[in-house]
């Protein structure tokens, strides 16, 4: 529910001040027309208190019922009706309270139209201000909801991207384990452990989106170990990192899809041994990681470049940093290179 404008202290003070000014003004005018101060003040107090009540009524009503489009005519009617009601009540009370003063009845009779005009004007103003206030309030709420929804969607997408797992990898690993069980049960058991640790990592739903580079490398190692069992001596990896990069931060599970892409590309495109190289260094404020894999320019599929695995990396980097230039790939001779930059400055 939206709050009334009077929930804000500043508006409350203004509201009361305006009321006091009206009160004084009204009293002075009545006194000016020849009534003693007592009568003038009583007149002013009764009239303005009733007006105050009417204003509060309008404000509160609009809080629950905000006119749209053509319904403004209703608001006008309500204002008019309230003003008339106010006038009748005021006249009644004033007559009861002040009729013994000489000439007051006459003055009251003559001032009714001016009293009506002023009250109608004031109530109209209050109504308009309230409508504006509540509309703005509603808009703001809508905006807030939208931002919230966007934030949620972004988090969900980030989570999904993080735990992306290629079914191929999972089923082929299970198949390898199946083969090992018969001939080399100890290795089979080890691989089950590695696969579980790896899977546990991908479904981890912690808020900690960020890990240190050395933690990420440990996780990557699990993945590489599994792949090495699968592909035997066809797959070799070389990791070369500057010591200064160990404590740098990286979004968790960012590296694995990049390396997975390199392995697929390398292994599926060449028939001999494949060496995947990974270099990491600190460049300015960024953690810079370069992954290289061999490929055969003659036969590699034309969809070279940002395959699905890399697309998800790119999307993650965009969601996290709002930049599209952090992932770069290029192919030179028979080496395909993926370079990813992780800015360190903005991490909160």
């Amino acid at each position: 529910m939206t709050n009334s404008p009077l929930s804000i202290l500043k508006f409350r003070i203004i509201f009361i001040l305006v009321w006091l000014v009206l009160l004084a003004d009204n009293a002075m005018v009545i006194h000016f027309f020849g009534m003693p101060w007592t009568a003038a003040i009583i007149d002013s107090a009764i009239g303005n208190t009733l007006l105050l009540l009417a204003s509060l009524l309008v404000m509160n009503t609009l809080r629950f019922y905000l006119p749209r489009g053509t319904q403004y005519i209703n608001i006008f009617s309500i204002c008019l009706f309230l003003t008339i009601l106010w006038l009748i009540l005021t006249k009644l009370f004033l007559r009861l309270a002040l009729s013994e003063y000489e000439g007051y009845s006459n003055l009251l009779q003559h001032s009714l139209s001016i009293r009506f005009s002023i009250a109608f004007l004031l109530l109209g103003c209050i109504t308009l201000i309230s409508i504006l206030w509540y509309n703005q309030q509603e808009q703001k709420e809508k905006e807030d909801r939208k931002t919230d929804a966007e934030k949620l969607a972004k988090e969900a997408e980030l989570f999904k991207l993080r735990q992306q797992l290629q079914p191929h990898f999972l089923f082929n690993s299970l198949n390898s384990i199946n083969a090992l069980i018969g001939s080399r049960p100890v290795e089979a058991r080890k691989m089950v452990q590695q696969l579980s640790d790896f899977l546990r990592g991908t479904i981890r739903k912690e808020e900690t989106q960020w890990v240190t580079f050395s933690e990420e490398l440990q996780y990557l190692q699990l993945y590489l170990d599994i792949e090495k069992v699968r592909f035997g001596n066809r797959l070799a990896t070389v990791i070369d990192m500057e010591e200064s990069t160990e404590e740098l931060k990286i979004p968790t599970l960012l590296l694995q899809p990049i390396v997975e892409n390199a392995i697929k590309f390398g292994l599926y495109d060449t028939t001999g041994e494949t060496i995947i190289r990974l270099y990491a260094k600190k460049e300015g404020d960024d953690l810079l990681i370069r992954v290289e894999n061999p490929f055969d320019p003659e036969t590699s599929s034309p969809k070279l470049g940002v395959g699905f695995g890399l697309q998800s990396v790119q999307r993650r980097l965009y969601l996290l940093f709002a930049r599209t230039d952090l992932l770069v790939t290029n192919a030179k001779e028979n080496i395909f290179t993926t370079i990813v930059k992780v800015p360190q400055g903005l991490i909160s």
Partner: protein
Amino acid sequence: MNKVIIIDDEPLARSIVVEYLQNHPDLEVVQQCGDGFEGLKAIQQHQPDLIFLDIQMPKITGFEMLELIEQPPGVIFTTAFDEYAIKAFESHAVDYLLKPFNQERFDKAIAKWNEQKTNLPEKMTQSVLESASSSPAQRHRIVVRNGSKIKIISVTDVFYLEAADDYVKIHTQEGYFLKNKTMTHFEQSLDEQLFVRSHRSYIVNVQQITRIDPYEKDSHVAILRSGAKVPVSRSGYGRLKEVLGL
């Protein structure tokens, strides 16, 4: 004694097939191969009765390898996960094993093959291939045989295709290559935004077209970047205009 070849890029995946085959003394593994090239050579050399074939492999896929064999032997596919392929298999009789599979399932596949090998296995393999390779994910390249060599052509390098009896001539920068397929097959499997059947006997790569000139009555001719001229029939002209947004 039946000869068996196992083609899979993962050594452990091959070893499980070998292990399960111990139940079938009438089947003898004559060779194990780690990719499609090796597989192709081995098939020619040994003329096996049955092959176990993985789909995702280095260089060329299992499907592409089969396309290059004129009379494929019985095939049992072994694959981890391939939604397109599975769809293709399901509608046909050739068996497939989803990794990981157990001995029981393996024995069933062998039994199925035993039943079928008397009933024209090539035809079935052929129909699986047709539907598998025309699935949308497949065709971004065409694998052809060029003498003893295997050539992989990216579809973006194809100028146009021309019908030639039982074959299709694939015209590229380096001349043309022959593929034992139908025009309809290519029309269906190639990206329709890139390749348009301009004529009963021609499919043209629209990105290669530099201009289209009128030619005789009712027909046109498309001039390609390479200077080649491709006939465009009246209905073909309509299709071209649609794709080019004219």
